[in-house]
């Protein structure tokens, strides 16, 4: 009976959301091989502990497990897991908004450059960008997956977009930018 359950869980709750799981792991881990290992391990846990889903959104449930597995895996396998100090993360002091990057618009940018920009983001910013822009989760869903408050989602996403813009403006050739100042 238990064997059939694992296979059923895989088929019903995991395989339909495998792309979402892999996409998140791919961007958090930074490469295909590690992402596959992470997803495999996450799915192993998910098939064993599917009772924790309690009928909630299966994609969100799986992403929560994948995310946690990513961070555990990174801690084990990598010295610098891209975590930030509390000061860098928290918005206790509002970032003085630098309008410089916002006055510059991107005329032309390729996929690889965008990917590099995302990869340059520290993990807490990277994951909210992935979950919002690629996975199309709502702020509430992002809060659930990442285990943070709604307010933190908002502020982190805002800063993530600002950071991305800053990186792009620095790394894209002038000919691909429109400076509106």
């Amino acid at each position: 009976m238990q064997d059939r359950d694992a296979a059923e869980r895989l088929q019903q709750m995991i395989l339909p959301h495998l792309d979402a799981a892999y996409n998140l792991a791919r961007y958090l881990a930074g490469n295909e091989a590690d992402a596959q290992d992470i997803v495999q391990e996450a799915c192993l846990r998910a098939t064993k502990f599917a009772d924790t889903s309690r009928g909630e959104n299966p994609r969100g449930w799986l992403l929560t497990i994948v995310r946690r597995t990513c961070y555990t895996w990174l801690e084990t396998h990598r010295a610098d897991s891209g975590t930030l100090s509390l000061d860098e993360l928290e918005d206790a002091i509002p970032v003085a908004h630098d309008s410089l990057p916002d006055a510059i618009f991107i005329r032309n940018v390729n996929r690889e450059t965008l990917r590099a920009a995302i990869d340059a983001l520290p993990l807490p910013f990277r994951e909210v960008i992935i979950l919002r822009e690629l996975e199309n989760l709502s702020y509430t869903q992002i809060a659930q997956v990442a285990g943070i408050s709604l307010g933190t989602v908002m502020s982190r996403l805002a800063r993530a977009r600002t950071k991305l813009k800053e990186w792009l403006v620095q790394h894209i050739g002038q000919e691909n930018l429109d400076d509106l100042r």
Partner: protein
Amino acid sequence: MTCDEINQQIDAYIDHELDAAHALDIERHIEHCAACGQLYQSHLQLHNLLVQSQLYETAPETLRQKLIQQTLSTSLAKRDQPAQSQPATHTLWRRYTGIAAAIMLAAGLGWQASEWFHRPPSTNTLADAAIAAHVRSMMPGHLTDVASTDQHTVKPWFGGKLDFSPPVTDPATSGFPLVGGRLDFLDGHPVAALVYQRRKHVINLFVWPTEDQREQDLVTTSSRGFNVLIWAQQGWHYQAVSDVNDAELRAFAALIMQ
């Protein structure tokens, strides 16, 4: 609203996370405030770029197969096996990793593997049968009997093996390239299986002739993570099975129906 408040909420506005009243306040502000209007346009452009640039990484097919094999092996290791053979299976699994193990297990399990994903149907529906056939075809080496992206190779291949020649189209330019063909059985009779690809997903299109010349409308079923579309047209019965989402499978069916 102050510009500081706009700074904090402009992204939520872009993501449609604000209630109508708040959204209206923001709209009014950015209409008259150049700096905040620029901030809005800047973040909006970035958002659109990210959404439209095909940055999504879909899971490789090998990963899907690995997971299936992984589930099977951990399940089987738990089954009542004599104590002597269980360590052997375990050691074998650990020694060969990755695809090698998957192939070995698949070869050893063969039909047995498909049983795990084919619950004995209480009602022998066409959809269940198609899904079972689809899953069987996902076992390594079972996908195509003729592997060719050329419809002019695949179509005649069926001649002499089936007593009909199925219509074969190749909507590759729309993102559903033909991968090949295969003989299969559904409901006890031989059918043509046309294999297509959508990114990293496989679509099996089962085709066989029907004497009923009426058009049969698209019927859609979803079971165990697979979507199945069934229809009939111009004397042919079609069933499309895949784990791509319903919208994409419908798009595929629309292309085939042309």
